[in-house]
């Protein structure tokens, strides 16, 4: 009995988090009139398509700007993830291995910027980007978020774990600062760098406020922001189209995540050189 109830609790917990997503997935295979027809009463067909159709996907692909906007999201993901990984790697190296006045203070200042949410600082950030002339441009979207305190923290901690003897040995062999980073440190923190990259790649799909504010051209907009425009909460929304387009939007994130996630765990095994 105890075992049964603990299983039921786990099942309920999982259902609370997965059911809404599955429901949305099911909605993307529906036809709107069919959805509204079954909405009035509670039945199996309130949740599932009675006549599954790919019509919504066909209409989503036919949305004139969606392919371009999806490309924008993916490209922004690659640019931001790569920029963040590189800037975090270099800064983490300097903050871990170099000795200079105010090092800890600088690191704390970087971490402190975590407490400045975009929601709160949106207007002044907009003014800065406007002054730089980057409103409505791809770089206006990307540049403000290429520095990430989380990335710097992650990489610095990983470099701290690498034994210093390794870089001493490399520098005795005549390696300069760059070679030390490339040959002694980078191979040992590959997992952390990939984690940092992946985290910031997926992070682009979180975005709504900044592109909504800083990008007013339709063909430069991100897919998820454009899809949000299809929702009209107080009147009837074409949910099948919304979810078909949303699912097309998150497919690239899932593919990249699936391809890279094995590096996240396997790299831990290769750091065992202590």
């Amino acid at each position: 009995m105890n075992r049964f109830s603990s299983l039921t609790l786990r099942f309920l917990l999982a259902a609370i988090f997965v059911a809404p997503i599955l429901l949305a997935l099911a909605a993307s295979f529906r036809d709107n009139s069919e959805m509204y027809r079954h909405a009035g009463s509670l039945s199996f067909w309130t949740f599932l398509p009675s006549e599954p159709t790919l019509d919504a996907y066909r209409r989503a692909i036919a949305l004139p700007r969606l392919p371009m906007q999806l490309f924008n999201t993916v490209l922004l993901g690659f640019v931001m993830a790569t920029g963040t990984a590189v800037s975090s790697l270099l800064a983490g190296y300097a903050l871990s291995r170099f000795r200079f006045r105010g090092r800890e203070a600088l690191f704390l200042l970087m971490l402190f910027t975590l407490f400045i949410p975009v929601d709160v600082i949106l207007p002044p950030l907009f003014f800065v980007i406007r002054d730089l002339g980057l409103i409505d441009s791809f770089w206006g979207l990307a540049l403000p978020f290429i520095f990430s305190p989380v990335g710097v923290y992650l990489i610095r901690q990983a470099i701290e774990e690498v034994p210093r003897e390794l870089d001493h040995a490399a520098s005795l062999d005549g390696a300069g600062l760059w070679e030390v980073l490339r040959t002694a440190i980078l191979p040992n923190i590959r997992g952390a760098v990939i984690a940092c990259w992946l985290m910031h790649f997926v992070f682009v799909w979180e975005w709504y406020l900044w592109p909504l504010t800083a990008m007013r051209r339709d063909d430069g907009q991100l897919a998820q922001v454009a899809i949000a425009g299809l929702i009209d909460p107080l009147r009837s929304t074409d949910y099948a189209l919304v979810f078909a387009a949303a699912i097309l939007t998150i497919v690239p994130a899932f593919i990249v995540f699936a391809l890279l996630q094995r590096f996240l765990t396997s790299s831990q095994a290769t750091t065992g050189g202590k």
Partner: protein
Amino acid sequence: MPHPTAASGRDISRRNRSAAFLEGWGPALVFLCPALVMLCLFKLWPIAEAIHTSTGTFDPGGQRIDTAGFDNFGFALSDSRFQWGLWLSLAAAIVKVPVQLALGLAAALMLRANTGGNALVRAMVISPMFFGLPVTTFVFAYLFDANVGAINAILSGIGLPRVAWLSTEAPAQLLVLGLSVWRDVGVTMLVFLAGLSAIPPQIAAAARLDGAGPLALFFTITLPLLARSFQFAVVLATLASFQILVPVLMLTKGGPTGATDLASFQIYETAFSYFDLGTASSMSLLLLVGLIVVIALELRWLAVKWTYE
């Protein structure tokens, strides 16, 4: 073994103070450069910009026409709508943080053992994070849709009245906060799972030998030893509670009748609908200071002094 950059600056510092102040920065700067430039341009400059704009008045085209001193702050603070917005933002934190912590802790305790089934359920609990905030907001918009939403279908199916979720006050607040908790509870769970795995099993074993029951074990051993995770989870949840603008902007637009008229939503409207840059910047600064004060208080109240060693 001397590291190339680890030259000691001790004796130099006595001779030349300003040179010592910059000691070691030369090579470090090359590597720090990209991060430092971004930090200054996009994290520190906006704050300076906010301070600068908050002391001016602007015409609707964005041109500074006059200096206003602290008038913008006075105007924002005496505005009853902004007072309500600040209160709502604080109330969101007061509701979200304890609920999310309780649920996250319960989930962590339940899924603590490392079994395959538990790993699967854990993955499901954190899955909303992978879809991104805009998409999860679409999902909730559909789930709680007044006409086709599953929630209303279930309510009417079991004989309860249907709810107009987005056009009634308390339900709209519940929807926005519920989305936020649903999305973030996985993070809290992960923090507590990490804290639980750090507790040495000998401590619990010793307490059990002394005759502690499961409840006593939880309240006298587990909970106190999770203090550090608590502190971290509270700060993370508080930060997230100040970031619930997306569903408000997408679905409720601050309504109905001001029920979700958060301070951050008013900042957005003041800047991008009314083009009142001075007031918007002073509101941004006020909310930022409020957030930092709340987090500082939490860090103080939840300060942990012990270590395992």
